[in-house]
């Protein structure tokens, strides 16, 4: 079997199996939903890992395979390169972990949100898992647009799952705000097609510099919307009304990652990128970064704190990606590695928050004290996640942030404005570290507070999910570094 054929077959399977499973879940009795969901995401994960194996055995040559063409015009295609082959298994795998975690979380034993999961939970979650490899592998802008919109619809359904006034509002905000941003992607698609006659992203390279700037900026706007950057960030804190495993997936490996992935893909495809794009990206990133740090300070709800932390972490990624425009390959690789690393760390952190809700019935930080004594595993997971996000070695966040800043200084050398911006970013990481130390000090150490002392035991499927993620938080940067070279 030809490797290109094998990879495209596997890629299609990774996308299609969860989609079909989503429909099947809707048709079958409720109890079957969770197992079909786990089965489908496992198969999808196997397919993405198999792609990585084939890809590595081929000497990591980038390849594009056209799937749906009308005449000579490619509508949908798959691209296999170092970035997409690395990210797809991470996104699908985290989807699987989240599904496993949901087995215990979405139950009547949950102290904060007792619930028997209705079919739509697993149906939409599974479709979401399928849409992620679709987006990552898409080689055309139409393909990106399709999966962009599908992830929007899935997140809408999942955020609104509890059907309270608050969650409905959160769901609508997520859908509408990201859809407004998506207009950028529609415009980019139209400009690209009209000027080159194709939807293939690699055609961005053929555009003249002015048009290229417009197309890239239009994509950047769509990316900001999905990745909850200013001026579109509002939906992300509201999306906290989602069930926590869903929040974990939205923040770790799906919704917000859609934005950075499409921007990264456009940078890969564009050849030389006009500096204007870099400037807009860098300035947007640093403004969001500083803004989100100040939003940390008043947060008492662990999940809301994490929401702003996600916004700032994505700003680092945008910062790195935009700095790469000024000629630093290292900053680009650091950003891609950070997409990968942050996925595990942030998912872990959310699942910790979810475990606290489940066992103690609250996720309000002032009420949570002394986790290490009562629930050492959760305490360790909390600490690992917080330190990884803050970028402390030897956890994964350190390595990718280091690459972003090292690359940033390299790119900014001789330009005092850029250098200042990179230094501001660096200061932010230190402040973030200090703040998380304070949070950890409060939550982990000391005598258990009342709610923590009365906590119920952590169910097995949660333990599995937490352990896998703790391990990945240690090793993922090694994987990313080895893979990206």
């Amino acid at each position: 079997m030809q490797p290109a054929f094998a990879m495209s077959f596997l890629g299609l399977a990774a996308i299609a199996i969860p989609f079909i499973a989503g429909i099947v879940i809707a048709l079958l009795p409720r109890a079957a939903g969770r197992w079909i969901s786990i089965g489908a995401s496992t198969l999808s994960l196997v397919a993405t890992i198999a792609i990585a194996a084939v890809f590595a055995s081929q000497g990591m040559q980038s390849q594009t395979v056209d799937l749906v063409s009308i005449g000579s015009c490619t509508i949908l295609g798959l691209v296999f390169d170092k970035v997409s082959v690395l990210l797809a298994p991470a996104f699908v795998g985290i989807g699987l972990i989240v599904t496993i975690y949901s087995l215990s979380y979405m139950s009547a034993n949950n102290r904060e949100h007792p619930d028997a999961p209705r079919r739509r939970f697993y149906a939409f979650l599974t479709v979401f898992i399928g849409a992620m490899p679709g987006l990552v592998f898409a080689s055309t802008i139409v393909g990106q647009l399709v999966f962009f919109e599908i992830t929007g619809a899935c997140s809408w359904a999942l955020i609104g799952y509890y059907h309270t006034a608050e969650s409905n509002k959160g769901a609508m905000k997520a859908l509408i705000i990201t859809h407004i941003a998506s207009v950028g992607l529609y415009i980019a698609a139209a400009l690209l097609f009209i000027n080159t006659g194709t939807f293939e992203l690699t055609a961005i390279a053929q555009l003249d510099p002015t048009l290229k700037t417009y197309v890239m900026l239009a994509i950047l706007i769509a990316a900001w919307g999905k990745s909850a950057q200013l001026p579109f960030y509002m939906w992300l804190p509201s999306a906290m009304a989602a069930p926590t495993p869903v929040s974990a997936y939205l923040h770790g490996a799906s919704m917000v990652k859609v934005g950075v992935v499409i921007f990264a893909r456009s940078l890969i495809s564009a050849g030389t990128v006009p500096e204007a794009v870099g400037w807009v990206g860098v300035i947007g990133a640093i403004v969001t970064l500083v803004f989100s740090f100040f939003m940390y300070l008043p947060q008492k709800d662990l999940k809301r704190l994490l929401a702003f932390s996600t916004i700032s972490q994505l700003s680092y990624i945008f910062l790195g990606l935009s700095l790469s425009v000024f000629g630093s390959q290292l900053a680009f690789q650091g950003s891609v590695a950070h997409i990968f690393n942050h996925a595990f760390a942030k998912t872990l952190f959310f699942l910790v928050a979810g475990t606290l809700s489940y066992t103690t019935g609250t996720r309000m930080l002032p009420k949570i004290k002394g986790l290490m004594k009562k629930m050492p595993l959760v305490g360790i997971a909390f600490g690992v996640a917080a330190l990884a996000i803050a970028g402390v070695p030897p956890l994964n966040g350190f390595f990718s942030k280091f690459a972003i800043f090292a690359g940033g200084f390299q790119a900014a050398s001789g330009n005092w404005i850029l250098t200042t911006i990179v230094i501001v970013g660096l200061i932010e990481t230190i402040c973030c570290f200090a703040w998380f130390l304070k949070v950890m000090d409060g939550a982990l150490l000391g005598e258990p507070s009342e709610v923590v002392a009365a906590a119920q035991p952590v169910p097995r499927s949660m333990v599995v999910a937490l352990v896998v993620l703790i391990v990945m938080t240690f090793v993922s940067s090694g994987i990313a570094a080895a893979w990206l070279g």
Partner: protein
Amino acid sequence: MDTSQTLLVLMAVPLSASLLMALIPSRRASIRVFESIHVLSITLVLALGGMLVASVVVTGETVSAVGLWFRLDPLGSIFVALIVVIGFMTGIFSLPYIRHDIETGVVDSPKVKQYYLFFNLFVFTMLLVSLSNNIIVMWVAIEATTLSTVFLVGLYNTKTALEAAWKYVTVCASGVAFGLYGTLLVYADAANVMADPNQAAFLSEIIPYASQLDPKIIMIAFVFIAIGFGTKAGLFPMHTWLPDAHSEAPSPISGLLSGVLLKCAILVIIRFYTLSISVVGPTFPQTVMLILGAASVIFAAFAVFVQDDIKRKLAYSSCENVGVIALALGFGGPIVIAAALLHCIMHALTKSYMFCLSGNIVMKYGTRDLGKIKGVIKTAPATAVLLTIGFLALSGFPPFAMFVSEVMLFLAGVATGDIWLVIVIALALTVVIAAFTLVVIRSVLGDAPEGMKRGDVPLAALVPEFLLVAVIIWFGIALPAPVVAGVESATRQVVQASGIDSDQTLLSGSLFAGLQSSIMDE
């Protein structure tokens, strides 16, 4: 039977079905008699129409009958296909729906007769619109669609239904009168210049003389036509009758009205639009359509949002989508003709599907008030799933049919340089998304009102809906080659007839490839 005879039989079947029903006394005959005649008629129409459309698409040749009077060209065949397919689906859906009305005592047997009789007459008049080559007959046929449907709109005899029927007949009749002025102006002008003035009413004969027609007169005529037939199509600000009529009619009829009848009016507009472009150049007709289309989309988007009656919401969404089609014609150029025609198809399927589903809701809840419709997912799970898919499809989400045509529209708008208008329209469509997703959140999900029994509508009502949703997903994921071929040849016809760039090898091979080359040439 050759194709031209088939064409006549196609029109004769629904006409004779309705005449036959008229002769049968409703008091004596059981409703089964009417149902059987109805099913036989719509099935035959589907079979004959399907055959004819297939032959036109495959051979690319126009079928004509009775000299120049009736013609099935590639453009018309798209609309004939819509009439026969959606007529069949809504026709089948009518059976359980009307049965339910009989059970609840809303209609009695004379009403059942009235329903099926006018349903078939309605199908006949729509076929007449799309098959007529004589512009005067075309106008008459449009008027006839109003007359045949007004009794369907007023079927339930309630105060609001009668009001809607009156409003419908007065607004449309007076509106379409403008269409008559326009039509007559074209006829008079053509009769002046044509070698044989007796043929001046036949559109196919006028087109070769386009260069000799008087541009001033044609401009005036086109404005009359846009207003007149625009009224029938539901364009803002002549749309006022539409939300009332479409919401008061029985749901299958709403589906047929919104899904197909509006498109028939669009077909008439496209025919004159083509002629006008070849006479006065593209700028003027396009500007007229652009203004009407943009105004309709923006106005209707907000109107959709504020309605709290499910069928009125859907009706305003039809205004919005007809606006989208008009807007596409306004952008001009070959891609948009294709986009407009595709949108006609996609919207017809989606909207008739949604009106059938609103019929499920009415059967189940006995109301159209969204404030009272709660928790469909608990009371009628299959309907709830279908509704959710439908609202997402109607909002233009992938992988459903309307996404395809909307993307093409955006593309076309940017191609003609109207990028800011495209952005405004895209934002207006976001309002529609908000409106529909809120309906899902508020009415489809949540808890059912107390005392509602769980149980879906009859299977006979669900089957046509499942078929339609399958088509909507199918067209969204992979547009079948015959549909592409049909749209292509219709686009080619419009482009050649309007003479915009007749030498362009527009559609060699396939739609997108052709669009691609046409873009590269520019």
